[in-house]
């Protein structure tokens, strides 16, 4: 099998993720694009793991770690999005320009 197939697919997925992070305004959609980027990295890890065939299975184990970290990231990220929505009634990232709480 050509190694280039998964690598190019990973590059395309990463590019789409970059586009999504930059172009989207809805915070949930931005998180989805971040997931795409993480998955592109995972595909690269698996592909290079299959190519290099190391004894420690580094590619696959690191992918499992990335999946775990991504799950934690989504959990905390969505908690922040919900908090943002509760405070501002909007998840539009272009309008979330201040860190301080709004004056009550």
């Amino acid at each position, binding site marked *: *099998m050509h*190694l*280039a*197939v*998964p*690598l*190019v*697919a990973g*590059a*395309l*997925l*990463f*590019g*789409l*993720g*970059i*586009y999504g992070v*930059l*172009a*989207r*305004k*809805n*915070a*949930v*959609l931005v998180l*989805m*694009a971040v*997931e*795409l980027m993480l*998955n592109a990295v*995972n*595909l690269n890890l*698996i*592909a290079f*793991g*299959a*190519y290099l065939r190391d004894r*420690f*299975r580094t*590619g*696959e*184990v690191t*992918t*499992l*770690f990335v*999946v*775990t*970290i991504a*799950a*934690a990231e*989504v*959990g*905390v990220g*969505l908690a*922040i*999005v*919900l908090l943002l*929505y509760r405070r501002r009634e909007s*998840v539009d990232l*272009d309008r979330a320009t201040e860190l301080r709480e709004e004056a009550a």
Partner: protein
Amino acid sequence: MTTFDVVIALLAATSVGAAALVVTTRQVVHAALWLVVSLAALAGCYVVLAAELVAWVQVLVYVGAVVVLMLFAVMLTRAPIGRSADTDGARLGAAVVATAMTATLVVLLLKSFGDVRVDLKARPVGNGEVIGSALFRSWVLPFELLSLLLLAALVGAVVLTRDDIEGEQ
């Protein structure tokens, strides 16, 4: 061209196509559902690349948990069902940056690994037994640290979303 090439190319094309729809569709719920297609096709790629356990974890964690969490967030933030006009911001700038970076990466990867072949049958399939023994022989410390990270993320998410927890005044 082998059968592996054809199958993984088809799966990867499905994944990339669905990902393109994730970042361009104007319906928030559809984006989450296309994300399912994209991540499931990636799980298929992992199977072709002989990473069986990772493929199952991908299905369980991403398709099962992460996308459901996304859908909950979509519903809890009352995203409009149907088309919404204000999903996208600076599309042109984002497209320029993403295209430039993708083109650079693709050219670089094709130049470096364009004619590299992978022998997928040269080592045992990464099933539960193989990955499990690698995990608990060589990777125990990071594995245990990750459980700590998950606990911290869990507590953090609970503290963030509950509004009846007050700091000491």
